[in-house]
């Protein structure tokens, strides 16, 4: 066993750092520092997407033949860690990270040729139409119907928790194409432009007051049959494939370590009850160290997973669930303690100072802006992409239970 980086890895790391130093400009850093949502707001996401696309780095997981950089797992890890540490905008995962691999694995040649370049360029901005009001954890019970009518599917139903549907121009949908038989066996994977007649997007405000998610209504929407991915009724298999990317696709260590560094910074600048920096209080430091050990455990689990991927192993569902569970709970714990470290400034609703176009200063120091909003927003992290209860069920199943 040896995790010493090779000379190539070190050269790559320098290249990534040099790129970020040049292209992740103070303006962009300022914008990224004002984000508290799961993903960066659309305008910032588009700008950063364009910059990464120009560099050829927008799709770290994609192979070279489809326009990816063709990186090794180790290079992907280095890239994501450096971006996380630098605090680059969190780009919406729905296109490049989720729908792209699905089209590569299950799409027709025509679909690959049409969709993948537009996904890379950012011309297509994707959202994910999986959950429904009646189908959350029990996703396979979904009821949005797609009925074949000549060259089209006629789609009726509703999707919910659709992140960035108000920014997107395309949606990938799980739809019911067969009512009989096992519920998993009657689902198809369908793509649709959001400007088709009959599609309505309505906002859902989160408890922090932000607009990230939506409900999407589909009323007699005629979707061309050429947008079916894979075979009719193959959708569940495709969805399960996609969910392994949603749950354990990338490396979160950089982002978690950046949050940890932020927590320490706050504790060093923020006074404790005795007037000395909070960081001087060993009781508080110990709580931070406890979180740090957990971040290390996640970081090294990710490294081990990357090494096994590099050795040719296939992504394993239980590992993806272990990472999804760990990272989502870690994000919550880090946000909670960072918010607590702020003292009375943690209590302020900072929504008027958040986002690219806010013109109010935060209450308290600049670092007081996002932690509490993150604490509120990360409540969703243990719910979306399969709740923690679902992940634990998958892990239990992998034990033969």
């Amino acid at each position: 066993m040896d995790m010493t980086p090779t000379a190539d890895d070190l050269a790559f790391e320098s290249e990534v750092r040099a790129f970020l130093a040049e292209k992740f400009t103070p303006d962009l850093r300022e914008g990224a520092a004002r984000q508290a949502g799961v993903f960066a707001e659309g305008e910032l996401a588009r700008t950063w997407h364009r910059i990464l696309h120009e560099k050829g780095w927008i799709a770290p997981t994609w192979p070279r033949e489809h326009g990816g950089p063709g990186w090794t797992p180790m290079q992907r890890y280095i890239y994501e860690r450096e971006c996380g540490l630098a605090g680059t905008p969190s780009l919406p995962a729905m296109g490049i990270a989720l729908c792209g691999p699905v089209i590569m694995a299950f799409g027709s040649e025509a679909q690959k040729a049409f969709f993948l370049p537009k996904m890379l360029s950012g011309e297509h901005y994707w959202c994910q139409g999986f959950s429904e009001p009646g189908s959350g954890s029990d996703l396979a019970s979904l009821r949005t119907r797609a009925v074949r009518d000549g060259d089209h599917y006629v789609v009726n139903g509703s999707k919910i928790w659709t992140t960035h549907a108000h920014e997107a121009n395309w949606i990938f949908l799980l739809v019911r194409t067969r009512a009989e038989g096992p519920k998993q066996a009657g689902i198809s994977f369908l793509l649709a432009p959001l400007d088709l007649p009959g599609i309505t997007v309505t906002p859902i405000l989160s408890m922090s007051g932000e607009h990230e998610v939506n409900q999407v209504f589909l009323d007699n929407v005629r979707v061309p049959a050429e947008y079916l991915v894979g075979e009719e009724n193959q959708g569940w298999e495709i969805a399960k494939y996609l969910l392994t990317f949603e749950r354990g696709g990338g490396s979160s260590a950089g982002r978690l370590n950046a949050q940890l560094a932020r927590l320490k910074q706050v504790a060093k600048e923020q006074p404790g009850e005795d007037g000395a920096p909070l960081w001087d209080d060993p009781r508080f430091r110990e709580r931070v160290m406890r979180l740090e050990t957990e971040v290390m455990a996640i970081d090294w689990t990710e490294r081990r997973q990357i090494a096994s991927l590099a050795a040719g192993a296939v992504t394993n569902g239980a590992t993806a669930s272990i990472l999804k569970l760990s990272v989502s709970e870690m994000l919550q714990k880090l946000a909670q303690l960072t918010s607590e470290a702020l003292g009375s400034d943690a209590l302020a609703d900072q929504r008027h100072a958040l986002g690219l176009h806010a013109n109010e200063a935060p209450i308290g120091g600049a670092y007081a802006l996002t932690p509490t909003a993150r604490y509120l927003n990360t409540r969703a992290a243990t719910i979306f992409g399969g709740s923690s209860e679902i992940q634990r069920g998958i892990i239990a199943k992998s034990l033969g239970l």
Partner: protein
Amino acid sequence: MDFQLSEEQVLLREALAGTLARLYAFDDRKAALEAEGWRRDVWTMLAGELGLFAAAEREEHGGLGGGAVDVMVIAEEMGRANALEPWLECVVLAGGLLRDVVDVDEVRAGMIDGSLIVAPALFERAARSNPHRIACRFHDGALNGEKTAVVAAPFASHLIVSARDGASEAGLYLVEATANGLERRDYRLVDGRPAADVTFTDTPAKALQIGAGARTAIDRALDAALAAQCAEAIGVMTVLLDRTVAYTKQREQFGRPIATFQVLQHRMADTAVAIERSRSMAVMAALAIDGATGGNGQDRTRSVAAAKAYVADALRLVAEGAVQLHGGIGTTDEIDVSHYFKRAFVLQQQFGTAQYHLARMADLDA
């Protein structure tokens, strides 16, 4: 041993429950949040028709002469309703700070009848929840300094401000909200309630208490507010559990109500345990305020600190669990669960976190 509420207390609770449920119906409450963040007519009603503000005041001051148990009953109902009005700060805490002060009859009477709103301004950014680290100065009849997260400051008529005088003695001072040199930065707390950071620049102020009297008043009043806060937390947590039980019984996934899954049942059972134990702590704290625990003199501070430390952790467990078990809908602004969640968040931190109160306990034992 007697843990029964008196007949009057039971009647008070019942009367309050009905009225508050009506006043804080979800849509009305949300409309108030989107408007001013509080409602003067509701404030007047709490004071007048319901007479809540007189509960703990002495009879010679026009109060009802009640104790911390009466306050506990009110607080729990305020929590259950997720009331927006700053009763905890501007009545329980402010009333406590004024209780032993002579020569403030007019302000106290106005506070009791709801015509005046007195916002305590005790905390500073550089000292978090420690009320005895005070940088504000009082000199020549005027205040200089800053107080943070002063709840109700945007609409208060008066502020009670802690400051140090030339001899570095702590004191409490009364300031009119319209006084010269008083500047506010208004904002909302996470739970939607109006607050402000307040700066004083040669602001005229009237001394209420100086020295040992002020320190005692601050400790006593904060302990009473903390005990009330614990009771309010019981109301908040009870609703969160009730909503979660109801939702999981009604929400079906995998062909059955999700409440039938044992893992969810156990989480709700843990919640129930935390609430039951929190209630015991809230009762203990209230009795400690009234000097009715059968303990010794230092009992009050230790009991109250322990109660807040325990209840703060319970609030987090219960609130986070409630949102988790509601799934996506629990994270939205559209359901009252998220509003109770945010109130629970504020209650955890306001007047000190669990860690701060554990440290107070540890210091008492040192």
